[in-house]
């Protein structure tokens, strides 16, 4: 696995940032492709366990956005 690109795991709130991400697509904006998205119903669902698990799993960073 020779990926040099860092992988960032993002947890996006369904109602806020996930919508913003959709809209960014509709507007054909561009941003780096390092981000992998997990849709969560609300940032209230976030648990520190997820962040630790992601880092342990090899994510280079975690981004939580409400």
């Amino acid at each position, binding site marked *: 696995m020779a990926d040099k690109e860092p992988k960032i*795991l993002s947890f996006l709130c369904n109602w806020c940032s996930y*919508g913003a991400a959709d809209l960014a697509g*509709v507007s054909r904006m*561009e941003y780096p492709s390092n981000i992998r998205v997990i849709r*969560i119903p*609300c940032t209230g*669902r976030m648990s520190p366990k997820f962040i630790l698990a992601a880092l342990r799993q090899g994510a280079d960073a975690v981004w939580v956005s409400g």
Partner: protein
Amino acid sequence: MITFKLNGQTVQGEEGQYIIQVAENHGVYIPTLCAHKTLEPAGMCRLCTVELFDGRRTKFVTACNYPIWEGMEVQTDTETVHEGRKLIVEMLMARCADVPVIRELAEKYGIEKPRFEQEHETCILCGLCTRICERMGNNAITLTDRGLDLKVDTPFHVQTDICQACGACAFMCPTGHITLDKINELITANKPQIIKSEYDVGLRGRKPIYVPYPQAVPNTPVIDRDVCMHFKTGGCQICSDICPVNAIDHSMEDETIELEVGSVILAPGFEPFDPSSLDFYNYDHPNVITSMEMERMLSASGPTGGHLIRLSDHQEPKKIAWLQCVGSRDMNRCNNAYCSSVCCMYAIKEAVIAKEHAGDALDCSIFYMDMRTPGKDFEKFYESARNNSGVNFVRSRVHTINPVAGSDELELRYVSDNGEILTDQFDLVVLSIGLQIPPELVEMSRNLGIELSPGNFCETNTFTPVATSREGIFACGAFQGPKDIPQSVIDSSAAASAAAEILSDSRNTRTKEKEIVPERNVGGERPRIGVFVCRCGINIAGVVDVPAVVEYASTLPFVEYVDDNLFSCSQDTQENMAAIIEEKGLNRIVVAACTPKTHEPLFQETLTDAGLNKYLFEMTNIRNQDSWVHKNNPALATEKARDLVRMAVAKVARMEPLKESELSVNPAAMVVGGGISGMAAAKSLADQGIETHLVEQTDHLGGQAVNLYHTAKGESVAENLENLISQVKSHDKIKLHLNTQIQNVDGFVGNFKTIMLENDQEVELEHGAAVLATGASPYEPAEYAYGQDQRILTSLELDRKFQKEDPGLEKINSAAFIQCVGSREPGRMYCSRVCCTHSIENAIELKKRNPEMNVYILYRDIRTYGEKEYLYKQARQQGVIFIRYSLEDKPSVEVKDDSIAITVTDHILNRPVELNVDLLTLATAIIPCKDEELANFFKVPMNEDGFFIERHAKLGPAEFATDGVFLCGMAHYPKPIDESIAQAKAAVARAITLLSRQYIYSSGTIAEVDPVNCAACGVCVAVCPYSAPSFAEEGRFAGKAQINPALCKGCGLCVASCRSGAIHLKGFDTDQIMYQIFEMDEAI
């Protein structure tokens, strides 16, 4: 199918295809300058020359127009081919040394300097322009002359109007030889024009095929027949060639459709005022723009990407002025005498946003006559704009905008408050344009036979605020009068309710029942996952390598079936998917396509149709969050798509069928408050067949309206109120509960249980919904010597005197009104909305009774919004004297024996004047009843002033965030009768959407407690914003937490906060998310 050899590989192509097309499909690159997929090939540039072996000998052919045949052998890049191409490039380089595409090619073929004589032409004679012109149906340009003189020109070198200036040739030209300027100068007699985007108010262009705006419903492109070349010449139709689903049909005609309906609702909107007729504003100057242009410029998705610039030089402005009332409150210059209601607020908003964008250094000034911010929370926004954001407010109507010679600046000349003439320069001037009804709507209204107001808005009565003059036709939105979004939303729901009232008998008579497919039990089965990857035409497949993703997905654990669809959301694909699910016995489905926010319900329905529980589904977004945003990096986009599919597969494998709990709805409603709003709501509910309980704490109906004399439109309140009361009392579906206090409310949406004390008897009421219309009361002033003398009254007390025809009114020779008593000051920073109109109305009434009477109105801003402005004008014409005072310098009142003496600083003279009057009316604030207990019963919020907080300030103005509870009237915010009734009807419309159903279904993705692990710590009960968790009171797990599925919104807050891990969020459970995390990186 034709099979042949391409560079030694056996390939296949369709009959009639050319070599270059098959090569492209197989990823073999053949250079060309003259081929284009929309045009027939011409073999002009010869660059695509390839070597062809026909079994006997080798020859050279142009790949772009040589059709394929069985058994041929093609070599695309042999030494000879390469040398031949190099020579062509060298010759092109000699002819067109300055053209970027040619230089690039030359570099590629290693040519530094051609051996031939150097020319500096720009045309390479590829013929793309003449061919596209022919395709456009014009034939305006052609290749003229021969040999060395061959060139692109019009026949006989004359400019004609054959050329439609469509610009297709310039678009096609690979070298930049043809430009729009040249077309204008040499080719066409027509004027080339950019097609202006209506949505971006001309700040940006658009294509003849376009989606009007990103939020358009349906979000389907339309063809503008006025500019589409096909409709001018009969040519082109390239769009129909390219559309992969053959959706374009140019032969479609407008159809006349006849519908039989029981009611019509008019919501045709308005048009923004066009300031170009006002020459003194110099709107043609690039730095004078309208507020609509400003809105687009401030929008992040707008023409400047949210970057604030002035149009003359695209520099950031340092100083901006807004001019209010352009096209409003103006009889001399545009015949719109009314106030447009929304401009003050949007100008403040624009100024605040502009400062947020550009920083504090940006100087923003708003020039206004009266600052009109009478909406909910608007006054606070105005205050904050002035005090916190530093927006300047200048009270003056600017007469002229003068461009400053030799610069891009604009000079404003205006008169200050104390009569001084001032000038100031600005970089950008925004005209706050008003709302008006376009002539087409006036025409439509005439055809429909409905009456219009003096301002051409739809005429309605105060007590039937959405009914037009023609029975069965209703109106809403700005067509009924200039208004903002919340009011428009209220009106639209009200119109729906009004229509439903007269159509109540036919409710549900034309509905069709959907056939329900029995759900297959998948318990105990190992996951059999089906993955559907969507191409979305070229939206996804154009970037992401869909076949690769499909192939990859088939290697993932538990995946039984993978396929790609051209458009997964199309109906035939849906049916196909359902068939595959059944045929292959799939029990978990992943769709990799667009966004679940719009398409999840559609695919879930497909699952349901295939007999699968709809929660055995996961959607992953490889369009909005992948192909669309990484279009320049197909390799990484494909990798991301693989990862996302893998994560989705990992999650779906762990999905379980979820049940949506079914809750019955009690089709009865309770309305709290027997004022106008409450009664209007009760009557509307009852008219729609709903059993309604009207609860009032006093012994009579009518609320504050019993004190009111006339409406702003001059209708008698008493008469109409009596009428309404008798209708409510006699309605067989309304049960009145007078002298009743609410003691407790239990339950939730669809099933409330209310305990009330009715005439001191405990009564229990079961209902499915509640409308809170608890109203407000007048402020009891402590200021202005109120209570010290009978000649000092509140507005309502004066109305009472009018009602009773008090003989004392005859003796009055002078009267004054003081506005904003208790409103718009610290501690009560809101405008009571109705008082300006009310006082002016009463001033006119006094003048009517005694035209010689001196009537003064002491005000801060006159806020006669909408067509109420006519009253203000009428009052001034009748000699009512308006004197402005400021919050810092309030008038003082002294009671004398023969008169009431009022001292106020006159804003024009700038010195104190004393008025001696026989009657002083205080326009007192409206104070909500602030029943915290009631708010608590229904778990609904209140703002600091005591008004209820609606679900959404703009889009949910008549309902609470708590399901099943609605609001209307002055409990929401001070408002006149028509707006109260409209909101009552709006609340009912929202309530009926609930009450007309027998059952409601809670979402399946809700939290659930595992009582065995629950430690009963109570954290979930404390953190839940929706009060869904509670402690079980009985049963085996008494004392443990339980979650009411009807109240749970599935946010997961309790799940994350649960210390014992006893709460699970179905559909987003910890292990499901964990497995997504684990699968984020390629399995090790």
